């Protein structure tokens, strides 16, 4: 069983490599996700308005099984920082886990350097707002109220507590796009946030902001693997139906 898992990881890595080489020069084709189009617009507006962007990365540790969503959040943070680094008010990254807070500071700095504005980076913009999911969310609400935030992006591992921030954004007339790898949070955000990313859309967010070949390749790999799983499920159901397994 362990070797099957290793094989799946190896096969995915092989696909990623091959597809990167094949798709190196072809322009990426992405389906329309309205939530990300609105995010793109909100980021532009925040720079023009001189208002702030708040990016929540959740409270999952990178050492746990929930580490994938925060990593996708850091990737999006990097792109958003590059786009908004020259704004009057720099973006703030809020985390509910210490190592994630450190990485967010590093990512913010990299984003500023990538935009050629390294001297504008402020270490206090990468914050640890709490050590538990609820305290972290409670720590983000005052930032939204006091620091002129016009758009909030939640990308990471959140629970239902994300709805509290969505409610605060609604009162503030601020835009909020929410995503989480937890099903409960996705349901809560669907009801309370202006826009929600469901399931794997969380991992596609940065690709839509910076559609490079390497970014779109990982989406293609996900599609290929998804089709393989669908086929395996269908074949398995068929075999079970006919009493072969």
């Amino acid at each position, binding site marked *: 069983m362990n070797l099957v898992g290793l094989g799946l990881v190896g096969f995915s890595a092989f696909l*990623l490599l091959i597809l990167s080489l094949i798709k190196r020069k072809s322009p990426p084709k992405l389906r329309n996700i309205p939530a990300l189009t609105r995010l793109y617009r909100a980021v532009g507006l925040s720079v023009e308005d001189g208002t702030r962007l708040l990016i929540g990365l959740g409270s999952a540790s990178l050492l746990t099984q929930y580490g994938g969503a925060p*990593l996708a959040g850091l*990737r999006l943070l990097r792109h958003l920082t590059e786009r908004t680094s020259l704004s009057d008010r720099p973006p703030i990254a809020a985390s509910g886990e*210490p190592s994630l*807070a450190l990485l967010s500071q590093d*990512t913010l700095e990299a984003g500023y350097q990538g935009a050629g504005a390294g001297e504008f980076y402020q270490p206090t913009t990468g914050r640890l707002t709490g050590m538990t999911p609820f305290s972290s969310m409670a720590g983000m609400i005052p930032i939204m109220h006091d620091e002129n935030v016009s758009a909030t992006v939640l990308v990471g591992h959140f629970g239902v507590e994300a709805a*509290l921030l969505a409610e605060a954004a609604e009162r503030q007339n601020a835009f909020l796009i929410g995503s989480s790898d937890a099903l409960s949070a996705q349901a809560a955000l669907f009801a309370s946030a202006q826009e929600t990313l469901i399931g794997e859309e969380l991992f596609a967010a940065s690709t839509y902001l910076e559609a490079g070949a390497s970014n779109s390749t990982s989406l293609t790999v996900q599609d290929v693997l998804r089709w393989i799983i669908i086929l395996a499920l269908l074949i398995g159901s068929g075999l079970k139906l006919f009493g072969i397994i």
Partner: protein
Amino acid sequence: MRIVAFVLAVLTGLIVLVGYFIPALAPVESLLLNWAIILTGMAALVGVLNLILVHGTKITQREKGTVYSAILLVCLFATLVFGIALGPDHPAMLSLVNAIIVPVEASLMALLAVTLLYASIRLLRRRANLMSILFIATALLMLAGTATLPFGEIGLLNNFLRPWIQHVLALGGARGILIGVALGTLTTGLRVLSGVDRPYGGK
């Protein structure tokens, strides 16, 4: 320096990944994970220093919410002093957690129930489409099927509709979403392992 960080990160990631699948490498994997846990502990200290810096700046520059920042810093230092003096397992320290942090988080959870109810009512005004209608209709059906009703159970709802929605539609959909999340996590991990994404080491 960045190259060293990159090589170290990729090597460590590969060892931990392979150690998960091949038992012979498990001791090395365990050692590396223990180092990571120690580093996370240090990161907590850095995070607290960052918190002090953020709120200290707010107080010195008399920004909005200065009073709350002051209360936060006073409580932080008081907890630190008592924690060092008495130890984290002292009954006074434990009661501090049980009497303040646990009730506050429970209150937030209670507030969440009201928030979600209000958000569901507002959903149709914000996004009046088929998905919103389905969402609310399903939530109402599940509530009616779960709650104790004054006139007793509704047979069709309790015995057929609710279990069917729960075990067929919801479970199937949830599995689909989780497979999507798992595949996203897999490719994100591979991107970090191959160095395409580097959430470390600056530019």
